[in-house]
């Protein structure tokens, strides 16, 4: 083997590795480094404080609430959007113009900018004059507070996220459903298996790689929710919709506490890393790859 043929693969990947290192790896390590300091971004002197930022984080009730908000938001958003999109996918997985149109309509929220989506939902959810409360009143239900009460604000954001995400998830599910060989269904039909049994014994196991992929992707993106919060609530009212990424942004760029914000960033990194790991370990055993 010549030297060049040994080196060639490394030279080929060098550019992407370089970009990856500069824009992903280096910032991660720099953030971890910064989390041990007090710094305001500007002052040339960074004051080393050891683990103080972390102890302060976990002593701060506000931060603990932020963590629980983030967890609640993630669990609700992911479970709702996966379940709803799975049923939609099964319903939509057939021939016909109407099904195509519905599928397109469901997918459309995915391609609209989240900023405009947030603004439109803010109008819809206006407690006094919003369309949603008008509809509720029309069918004789009481008005809801939506974003103006800490009891319903996080759920309102979950609603937006589910509405926005269902179309994409359903699309991936439909692709997964269509790749399941027809002969398996034919066999189960011959054996006169009922629909529920067919679903549990064939559809779900055959769909598990898709399901697994979607859960991971949804978990990670929900954990990092930012835009809807920045536009619709700014974490309020009374911290009820403040989540990790928005918290980091606020402390980093509004209160200029870079060290403290970095410490919160490290927490985010650890949580998302752990989640991914746990899911890979646990779920990969139950996932059926053909």
């Amino acid at each position, binding site marked *: 083997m010549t030297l060049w043929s040994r080196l060639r693969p490394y030279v080929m990947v060098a550019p992407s590795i370089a970009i990856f290192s500069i*824009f992903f790896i280096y910032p991660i390590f720099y953030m971890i480094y910064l989390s041990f300091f007090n710094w*305001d*971004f*500007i*002052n040339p002197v960074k004051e080393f404080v050891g683990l103080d930022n972390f102890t302060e984080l976990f002593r701060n009730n506000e931060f603990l609430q932020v963590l629980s908000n983030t967890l609640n938001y993630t669990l609700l958003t992911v479970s709702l959007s996966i379940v709803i999109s799975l049923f939609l996918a099964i319903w939509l997985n057939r021939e016909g113009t109407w099904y195509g149109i519905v599928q397109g309509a469901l997918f459309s929220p995915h391609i609209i900018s989240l900023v405009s989506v947030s603004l439109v939902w*803010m109008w819809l959810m206006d407690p006094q004059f919003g369309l949603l409360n008008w509809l509720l009143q029309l069918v004789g239900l009481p008005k809801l507070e939506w*974003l*103006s*009460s*800490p009891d319903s604000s996080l759920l309102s954001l979950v609603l937006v996220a589910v509405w926005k995400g269902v179309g994409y998830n359903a699309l991936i599910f439909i692709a997964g459903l269509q790749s399941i060989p027809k002969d398996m269904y034919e066999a189960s039909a011959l054996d006169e298996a009922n629909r529920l049994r067919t679903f549990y014994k064939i559809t779900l196991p055959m769909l598990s790689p898709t399901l697994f992929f979607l859960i991971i992707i949804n978990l990670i993106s929900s954990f*990092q929710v*930012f*835009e809807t919060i920045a536009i*619709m*609530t*700014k974490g*309020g*009212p*009374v*911290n009820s919709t403040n989540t990790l*990424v928005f918290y980091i*942004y606020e402390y980093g*760029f*509004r*209160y*200029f506490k870079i060290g403290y914000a970095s410490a919160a960033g490290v927490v985010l990194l650890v949580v998302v890393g752990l989640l991914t790991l746990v899911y890979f370990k646990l779920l990969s055993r139950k996932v059926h790859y053909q």
Partner: protein
Amino acid sequence: MKKIASVLLATTLALSLAACGNTTSNASNDAPASGSASTPAPEKKKVEITYWYSWGDKIGENNENLVKMFNESQDEVVVKAEYQGTYDDQHSKAQAAFAAGNAPEVWQNEISSVGVFAKSGMTEDLTPFVEKANLDMKDFIPGLMGNSYVDGKLYALPYLRSTPILYLNRTLLKEAGLDPAGPKNWAEFEEYARKLTVKDKRFGITMPVDIWTYEAFVRQSGGTMISEDNKTAAFNTAAGIDPVKLWLKMKKEGTMNIVTTDDAGTQAKTDFHNQRSAMQFASTADLTKNMIVAEEQGFELGTSFMPANTTFGVPTGGCNLVMSAKLSPEKQEAAWKFIQWMTSKEQTIYASSFTGYLPSRVSAVESDEMKKLYEEKPLFKVAVDQLAYAGPRPMQKAYPEIAKILKDEILRSVVDSSVTAEAAIAEAAKKADALLSK
């Protein structure tokens, strides 16, 4: 996070492109001048500086117009004005830009942030420039100078300055048989709100839980926000609790609509514009806008002092102009020239009559132009008269965080009836003390 990064990248690209565009156009502008034989001096290059401003609409137009006038008034400095969203947006962007080494030369500090930026070394001490230019500092209205000095040095000059005032829908006031001059004190204010409320149709007043407004109410009760030595919160007293008590009482009676969403400020404005509320606390900067809206909607607009508790009182607000630190002497000179021009008598008269902001100079208030304006449109004069009761905003480094804590705790008492005004303010004071003692 990825999105933020790409937005930043896009902005930088756009900025650098814009910068390229300007250099070329300047080059072509300069060409004929250098070509003329009568100029003995070698081609004089214009110094280019960037100026950031907040807010659009009338205020944005005012900034763009002034910059255009400045660029046309002389041929040494070219200023490029850039819109940067709200004050908060501008502050975060300036901080990031400064860390990256490309901060704008001149920008705005919301007055309670002057201390933060001066102390972190982002803004330049203007004292030597003022001395060199022999600027008469006594001409700036003393009530507006409370947020200019940090540790005895001058860091910022008053530019677009305001106080909150009470806007009134005089048509509705007259309908309700009330004196269209407006309420003088809190008791009258309550009574006005009660009489102006029409259930399911209109509130006496719609307002957000806004710290600027809260500062005004505390001042009206004879209190202050932070102790003299900057070490503790001073609002955990009757003067700090009474405002919240009043708000909660009026909310319970249904005469005050306290909006708790993040866009509460906008909602208070639209409610007033659409006559779904009859009064509104807002900056004097909204005056011209409100006058236009009132005319479109067909109601008579009024303004008055914010009502008094034990005394009249408001914080001042708005922004001061600052110069970024660590500029080259050439840029410093250009930036100073611009700041001096922008804050001078003629310009403050222009800005004040264009928007409703306060004129920042004594000579401007006394000028014939302003006197004529006050005679024709007396609504403009209310904020100037109210200045006698105005004071600065707190400038501690922790104040932005304290403001957020206060807002959250007050909001907690608004949405949760089991939380009393006393408990909310005590909790906020406890957290604020922890931040201030660091």
